[in-house]
């Protein structure tokens, strides 16, 4: 049947070839070709479904449909316009369209299926005035996979990092103070800035970024805030901590209160120094800029996740003559802090500073574990590139997601 259809299509092609426009062709010829194309349109041959397979590594909500394109496509490229993918829940049931793909495409992932339910498929080739259907194929079932093999690399790296972190946390707990973390210059700068604010009788302004407590940068900022609050409590300096998120405010209050307890001055803790301003990014910026210009704090700390507000804060603080210490893992904002602040914690230094200043074995051990993981990645990259240059790429393929 298919063979005879091909012969008919080939005949149509030969008819058309005889009418290919040549130099000097008249408008009458063009009309004749168009008429011929119209008459040839019903000769589109149907596509053939080759396979219906459950989409691998998913939650059981998708079936991959593959078909052989209509043979007419190769003979009369303009005759087939697109393919429709149709689905039914029984072979003689009502088929509904689930997808449309352009001509030349021979596969489609139907991601609207229910796990375990049977589905039948049909592919329709659509021409200018005609639509021909493939034979119905099925049933096909989609199934959920418990394990996504496309994410083996992610699993390996996550497990490796977690194991290293847990091991070194245990090491840090058993040998407190023995796990080495290098001293960052910013540690001395913190004491220097707070000392200067105390001498000048001015406030210390602490901004913990634009994200809430569910962001790791805000959590790291809290560790540094504890150190800053320890020092302000010891020196008797006042703090000013406007917050952008209510939960961050609550956490900052708990952190600072604990610092005042730790240095034995719980009565000097003033929770009004830590307050909510607004959650709107630029409303917050306007408010903080006003505080900087009116109160002129002697030391400004910007530690956490920052976005467009970074340059505005840093420039205003610079104009007031404050010592400025900043740190963020937002790569796009780091340049602004680097040029306008006295000390900047770059990316992961923010986390390391928080861990080192807190001295908490869990945080210190975690940084040590991550360092070992980084050494492993260093070797992995170097070895992977060398192997790939000699044609071995399995280290790269291990990373492929999907």
């Amino acid at each position: 049947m298919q063979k005879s259809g091909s012969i008919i299509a080939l005949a149509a092609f030969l008819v058309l070839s005889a009418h290919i426009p040549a130099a000097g062709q008249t408008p009458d010829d063009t009309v004749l070709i168009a008429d011929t194309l119209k008459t040839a349109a019903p000769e589109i041959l149907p596509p053939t479904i080759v396979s219906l397979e459950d989409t691998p590594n998913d939650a059981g909500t998708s079936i991959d449909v593959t078909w052989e394109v209509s043979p007419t496509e190769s003979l009369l490229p303009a005759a087939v316009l697109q393919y429709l993918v149709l689905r039914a829940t029984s072979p003689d049931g009502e088929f509904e369209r689930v997808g449309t793909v352009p001509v030349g495409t021979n596969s489609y992932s139907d991601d609207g299926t229910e796990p375990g339910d049977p589905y039948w498929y049909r592919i329709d080739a659509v021409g200018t005035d005609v639509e021909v259907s493939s034979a119905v194929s099925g049933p096909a079932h989609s199934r959920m996979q418990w394990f996504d093999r496309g994410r083996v690399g992610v699993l390996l790296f996550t497990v490796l990092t977690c194991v290293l972190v847990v091991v070194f946390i245990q090491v840090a707990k058993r040998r407190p103070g023995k796990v080495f973390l290098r001293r960052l210059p910013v540690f001395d700068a913190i004491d220097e800035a707070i000392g200067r604010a105390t001498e000048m009788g001015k406030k210390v302004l602490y901004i913990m970024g634009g994200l809430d407590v569910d962001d790791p940068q805000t959590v790291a900022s809290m560790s540094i805030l504890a150190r800053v609050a320890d020092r302000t409590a010891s020196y008797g300096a006042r703090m000013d901590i406007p917050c952008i998120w209510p939960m961050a405010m609550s956490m900052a209050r708990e952190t600072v209160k604990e610092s005042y307890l730790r240095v034995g001055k719980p009565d000097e803790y003033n929770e009004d120094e830590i307050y909510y301003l607004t959650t709107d990014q630029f409303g917050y910026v306007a408010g903080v800029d006003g505080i900087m210009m009116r109160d002129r704090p002697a030391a400004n700390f910007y530690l956490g996740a920052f976005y467009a507000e970074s340059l505005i804060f840093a420039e205003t603080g610079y104009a007031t003559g404050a010592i400025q210490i900043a740190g963020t893992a937002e790569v796009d904002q780091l340049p602004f802090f680097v040029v306008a602040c006295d000390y900047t914690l770059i990316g992961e230094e923010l986390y390391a500073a928080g861990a080192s200043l807190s001295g908490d074995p869990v945080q210190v051990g975690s940084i040590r574990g991550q360092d070992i993981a980084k050494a492993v990645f260093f070797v992995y990259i170097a070895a992977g590139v060398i192997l790939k240059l000699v044609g071995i790429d399995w280290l790269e393929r291990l990373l492929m997601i999907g």
Partner: protein
Amino acid sequence: MLMTSGPWVWIAGLLTLAIYSFLYKDNPFYKVAEYIFVGLSAGYWAVFLWWNYAYPNLFVPLGEGNYWNIIPIVLGFMMFTQLSKRTSWLVRFPLTFVLGVSLGLQVIAAVEGDMVPQLQGTFSPFAKGALFNTYNFWTSIGLIVLLVGVLSTLTYFFFSREHKGVLGVTSKIGVYFLMVAFGASFGYTIMARISLLFGRLHFLLSDWMHILR
């Protein structure tokens, strides 16, 4: 010059000028605009968070019989315990819960979203014989720079070793790469900020003052 008669455009134009007056120095006009901005936005966000998060995600499902939502509602109300000094310690429970859950979830996001793509991005341009046959000279140099940049920058972020000896040299090279990257990022972001300034100037000169058409 035919200025618009629309009151809201006038208010927006005057407030824009009041905010920009901060470039000269702090002044009463800026203070008025700042207080309006902070107050209005705080109120707006309270209403926004209620109608877009709390009400549809907590209370509507609860009304439909999803009683699991009682747990986050109770945790949410525990945030108010800080209003009294006697009960303020209870606020640590919801804070700890949010911290634990969100940081745990972000471990996977960090590996899948940052770490693995970085490794893939470093590997992908390299291929068998690529350095000598496939690419031209400068592309090959670029690949070597990419590899050296990634590895040396990685060594800068080792915190449990002093940056001395070989590690000192590689981390120093890493710092140079970081500074070059920051310079490029600085220029790119400044361009974006200037386009924001143009947008505001266009509002003032076109929508408000009708100087530009």
